[in-house]
């Protein structure tokens, strides 16, 4: 009986990745892509997205759930990129400058986000989600109406023809692939963006180190039980704000790395997708709302993007309509988040029942 229960709970823990591996196993042969193509795609996408996804780890550690507010950081990064493009600073110096410009904005936004979430304990996720929409409104107000008249923008190519407001798409020619090609490496026909991976590796080390610091331990205690942590003298609200600020700043860097790989910036849409894709990816990797590891991030990015590349083709081969695969992909990204949230809530209830059962001495 106990064994059966264990197996069941193991299956429930890894339900999402299992479903996903199954889906990919069906879709890859259907799509007819070659192995080299897929490996190249995965390497590129892993470099492009990992940093953004990693930024989600620290709030999960602090028990604040999935930080839907990471789009705030993405917006800060984009504002940095707009200025750098305006000043025409190219190369890695440009990226660094974008990060320097974006960082104070990210810290400010992260602080706001943390303060708001402290007022909504127990429903951080939905609140940070709505906060993302709200700040998106403010972002549009600034970028669409204030830039070009109140905030000077000298490059006319960035500004809409009416004289103010930033264009819908910005070409990041000067920054394109600068980080990816900093240390070029070619294996056969596959090119590997070494510098980006070094950065991601360094960041993983940072997270491992951070977990061992006093602050990291405090956060873990918070994640276990907020009341106990408070009683133990951990400054709950302050620690929570720090967790969100770190996450927001990292998301800001992540978005800059993401966009230097893409090469064009969709001024009013890029950040929206950043949040959704990152969260879907980490959940697909087997993370839950309360527990996530670095492995989850990488597994998740690979599986999610495998689906991303493969599903339109698979849809086309299977039913003859690429649009169908596209909709299927949209469904998968949202459905997986829904499924993961449901499983998490379910597990919490199950744990409660287990706890009650153990109290009865069964």
């Amino acid at each position: 009986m106990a064994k059966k229960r264990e197996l069941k709970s193991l299956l429930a823990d890894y339900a999402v990745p299992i479903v996903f591996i199954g889906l990919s196993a069906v879709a890859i042969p259907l799509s007819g892509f070659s192995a080299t193509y897929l490996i190249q795609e995965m390497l590129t996408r892993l470099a492009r997205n990992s940093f953004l996804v990693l930024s989600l780890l620290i709030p999960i550690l602090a028990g604040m759930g999935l930080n839907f507010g990471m789009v705030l950081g993405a917006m800060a990064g984009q504002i940095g990129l707009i200025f750098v493009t305006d000043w025409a600073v190219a190369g890695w110096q440009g990226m660094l400058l974008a990060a320097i410009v974006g960082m104070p904005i990210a810290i400010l936004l992260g602080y706001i986000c943390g303060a708001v979430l402290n007022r909504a304990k127990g429903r951080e996720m939905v609140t940070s989600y709505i906060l993302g929409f709200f700040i998106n409104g403010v972002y549009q107000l600034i970028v669409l109406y204030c830039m070009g008249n109140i905030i000077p923008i000298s490059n006319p190519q960035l500004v809409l023809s009416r004289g103010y407001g930033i264009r819908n798409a910005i070409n990041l020619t000067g920054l394109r692939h600068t980080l990816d090609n900093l240390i070029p490496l070619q294996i056969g026909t596959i090119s590997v963006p070494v510098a980006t991976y070094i950065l991601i590796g360094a960041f993983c080390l940072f997270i491992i180190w951070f977990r061992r610091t006093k602050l990291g331990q405090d956060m873990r205690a918070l994640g276990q039980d907020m009341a106990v942590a408070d009683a133990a003298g951990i400054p709950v609200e302050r620690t929570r704000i720090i967790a969100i600020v770190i996450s927001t700043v990292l998301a800001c860097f992540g978005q800059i790395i993401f966009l230097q790989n893409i090469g064009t910036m969709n001024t009013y849409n890029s950040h929206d997708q950043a949040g959704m894709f990152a969260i879907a990816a980490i959940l697909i990797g087997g993370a839950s709302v309360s527990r996530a590891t670095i492995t989850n991030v990488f597994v998740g990015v690979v599986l999610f993007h495998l689906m991303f590349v493969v599903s339109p083709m698979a849809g086309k081969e299977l039913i003859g309509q690429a649009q169908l695969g596209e909709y299927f992909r949209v469904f998968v990204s949202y459905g997986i988040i829904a499924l993961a949230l449901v499983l998490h809530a379910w597990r919490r209830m199950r744990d409660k029942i287990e706890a009650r059962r153990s109290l009865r001495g069964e």
Partner: protein
Amino acid sequence: MQKFIEDAGWPRIIIGLFLCALFIAAPFVGVRIDASLSDTLVRVGMNGILVLAMVPMIQSGCGLNFGLPLGIISGLLGAVTSIQIGIRGGVGFLIAATIAIPIAVVLGWLYGQLLNRVKGDEMMIATYVGFSSVAVMCIAWLLLPYTSPTMIWGYGGSGLRTTISVEGFWLNALSKYVKIQIGEFFYVPVGMFVFFATIAFLVWAFFRTKVGTAMTAVGSNPEFARASGINVDRMRTLSVILSTVLGAIGILVYEQSFGFIQLYMGPFYMAFPAVAAILLGGASVNKASIINVVVGTFLFQGILTMTPSVINSVMQTDMSEVIRIIVSNGMILYALTRKVVVKR
């Protein structure tokens, strides 16, 4: 005065004053007050029932119904099926509703079962259930075997269009009854309002029955409700079904006035304006009344109607979209962060 401010809450007062200012400013910038007032009223009638769909779930403690798209989808299925059948006028509208309601009941029941298993996390899950159901329906709209030539893509000959006109079927099926026309610009679609009022009255009356009271009790204090012999899960399921059905009826009323059925990604963000409206009207995350619905819908739709026309004339730009985003999400944010006891 102090008490009034406390009761109404600052955001509501600010937005109310903003709306007043817009109405006062309107004539000076060449916007006709009677036309905009009439527009506002029409929009209130259009959106009222969608906002009303929030009430049962809030009252039973299921939180804000971000899963409204589920109800909307049922309504859309009813709408396209009635056009496929091809019956015109009020009867067509009725048929649409008759088809939509059973679908809404089934979907609502399933949705309610799900929400009962995830108590405490309803809102986030509801949002994503709404989103994924819209995505599923995107696939379904492409594949469902509808054949009416007014609805499917001209080329290819299969798959429904993104927007379908209801003109010639049941455009203004409710609005056209007893249309009061004063002057050239001011008109009130009384038929639609009577319908809205009837539904609102039914919901109001429902919450005065035994079952309705039990539902409110579940929302106020589930432990207490359980102790007094109320089946908590059943009440919650019932409230979710009710919300979903109201969502289905709501979208039909919306469409008969708007004139178009929006498929595919159309229902995606429809929950947010409705949520914002009821919160603007003074509801909180776990308490809502019909007054909240009416006041909130009027304020919210008033701002939506007035900002484009007035702000555009003043500043020569269209800021309405940005203002809409900030106002609606700001309002939801305010409600979520109010210091209320969070139950876990």
